[in-house]
């Protein structure tokens, strides 16, 4: 598990936590603890995403930190050195 995969997994986990809290807030709209926890995870998510994009390039097509055309320099999925 190299650093990129570890970071991707962490980002996925934090994003999942955000979705969970978001769903909880749908049914418990005035719960301050949930809202506070969601804000906390959202901050962590943006920090992790920024760190990921600094190191490995765009994480998604909507990445704000890297140039829009950074995809071209990455290897295509079928090219062997991709994984």
């Amino acid at each position, binding site marked *: 598990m190299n650093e990129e995969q570890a970071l991707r997994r962490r980002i996925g*986990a934090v994003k*999942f*936590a955000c979705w969970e809290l978001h769903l909880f807030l749908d049914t418990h709209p005035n719960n301050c603890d949930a809202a506070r926890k969601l804000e906390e995870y959202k901050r962590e998510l943006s920090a992790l995403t920024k760190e990921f994009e600094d190191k490995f390039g765009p994480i998604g097509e909507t990445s704000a930190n890297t140039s829009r055309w950074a995809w071209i320099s990455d290897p295509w999925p079928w090219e062997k050195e991709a994984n």
Partner: protein
Amino acid sequence: MADEKTGQSCGLYNDLTPLPEDPVPAMAYVPYQQWQKDLHTAERALDAGTLFPVLDKPFLGGRREPR
């Protein structure tokens, strides 16, 4: 500010108890989920499929505790 114990701030949905005050006989009720302080860590939540331990019900297959 928020009532720390149940985490509900003053406002709209204050009476979110697990069951309504006047549960009608012969009606099925699903207890309403309450906020809890101890959540799973993000990684554990990803594996368990939920952030809330109270909803985390792994199949035990007759055993007492998870594998």
